[in-house]
Every structure is written in C-alpha cells, then in structure tokens.
C-alpha cells in the first residue's frame, strides 16, 4: 500500500500553443475541490429528499513562493510571478480600455481567456496521477511579513469540467 505526501505533489502550467508543460518550482501547497449542485425533486407525497444533479463547480487554490533564480532578475517562468502577472497588470492602452488592462489570462493563445494547469501526484509512473483543467484565477494575494518567505496565494475556478482526470 502506498501513501503520498506533499513531497509528491506538483503543479504544471501548460502552454496551449506549444502544449509544453512547465513545472512550477516552488509550490507550497495545492488543493482542488469539486461540488455538485442539486435541485430537489421531492413531491408532496414523499417523505425523504430526492434530488437531481444539475451542475458542478470545480475550484482550487495553491500557494507559490516568490523567488528569484538570480538576485535582481525576475523569475517569470516558474515562480509566483507566473500567476501574479496573469491578473496583476499595468495599464495597457492596446487593450482599448481607458486606464484599464486586459482581463485575458492566457498570454500565449488569444483564443482562450483561461490557461491550463495540471495538478499532479507523482507516483513514479510517466504521467503520475493528475487533474488537467483550464482555469481562471479568481483571486491572487501576495503577502509579506517579517520572518516569513514571500508567497502568493492563488485561487482559481475551473472553466467547464476538467480536461483530463486520472486520479
């Protein structure tokens, strides 16, 4: 019997155009939660609740450390910056919004506003166990405090159902 700890957890970003996965290096934790919406179909002659499933919502969160590979150089590929820059953006006149910036979270493929991530449990096999999904970041929070490493808390919402699940 095999159990898994946080040491086997990984988080990948997927470039839609090249389909190349990029592992996010300093992930402290990730979680995913899927909930099903039900509506009651109980009638007057029934005593116990009866339901029909009508929807599903998948959300998640992760905490990623903010670091620099070389001091003074922003590590934009695999640190917290990758996620922060999808939401925190400077004004962009090209977006056509006065004093605004694009809400597009997929910088590499304009056909998607979302981007693709893979939450993975590395069990030693090729792909491991994983959940692939296209997500919107709904909240980013970068916090800094004395005696603690700077990290970003990310919350995301899955667009549609996950693309692939093997867990």
């Amino acid at each position, binding site marked *: 019997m095999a159990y898994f700890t946080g040491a086997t957890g990984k988080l990948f970003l997927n470039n839609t155009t090249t389909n190349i996965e990029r592992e996010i290096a300093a992930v402290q934790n990730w979680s995913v939660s899927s909930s099903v919406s039900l*509506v*009651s*179909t*109980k*009638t*007057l*002659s*029934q005593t116990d609740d009866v339901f*029909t499933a*009508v*929807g599903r919502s998948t959300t998640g969160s992760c905490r990623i450390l903010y670091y620099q590979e070389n001091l003074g150089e922003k590590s934009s590929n695999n640190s917290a910056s990758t996620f922060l820059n999808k939401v925190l953006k400077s004004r962009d006149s090209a977006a056509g919004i006065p004093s605004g910036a694009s809400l597009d979270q997929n910088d590499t493929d304009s056909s998607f506003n979302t981007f693709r991530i893979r939450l993975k449990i590395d069990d030693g096999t090729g792909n491991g166990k994983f959940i692939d999904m296209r997500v919107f970041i709904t909240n980013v929070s970068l916090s800094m405090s004395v005696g603690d490493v700077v990290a970003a808390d990310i919350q995301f919402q899955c667009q549609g159902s996950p693309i692939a699940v093997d867990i």
Partner: protein
Amino acid sequence: MTFPITKTNGGDLVPSARTFESGDFPVKTYKAQNGAEHRILYGDKRTNMKLSLTYANILDADAELFLDHYDDVQGTFQTFPLPSINGVNPTRGGWQGNKDALGAQAQDNDYRYEGPPQVTQVASGLSTVTVNLIGVL
C-alpha cells in the same frame, strides 16, 4: 387530453407545493342604514375555489404536458375535472384529509385555468411549472 397527472416516463405527476382556497357560496351582502348587515344566499353550491399547483424541477417533457393541456382546453375558456388514477388523484398527493374537502367536484364545480401556466427553466432539461386553477359551476 386530460389534466396532466402522469409523467411522460411513467409514475404519478405529483406537485411539490399546493395552495387551496375553498371559495365561497354566492352571497350578496347589504348594509342597512342602521348598520345591520343583511346577506342573501343566491345559490346552494360553493364555487370559486382557487387551486395553485407547483411542480418544481420536473422534466421539460412533463412541463410541456401542461402547456399542451392549456392549449387543448383553449386557455381559460373550457373547464375540466382533475382526474384520478385508481381512485387516487395525484394533484392531491400528500393530502391525508377527506378527498372532498380539497377539491371542487363535490360542489359540482369543474376547474378552468385562471391564467396561463408559468414555466421557469431551472436547469438544462428541468423546469418548474406553476398552474393556477379556479373552480366554476
């Protein structure tokens, strides 16, 4: 076509909520100058019962039955009875009192639509239907 009481895929179509107002006898009330009230009874049958039935989260195919029935009885024009299956009336589902108390037929009334059925789409393939009926002689 009778009032829908059977689901398209079988089973009784029982409402999830029901309200019933028992109507009244045809009474005319006069107030005399001295304040006394005089009432004249013009008939011996109670009428004007109001029955509201809500069918929450039913299949669209079942919701369609009410729309079809409303069309068959020419909207609010024709009257119709609420049918039973083996002596059980699904529109009275859950009611454990006397059958006659919660109905219109015992007073020789039939129902007609008070207004068109209201259909609210709540999810893909599921709708909530509310029908308001009124008992008439």
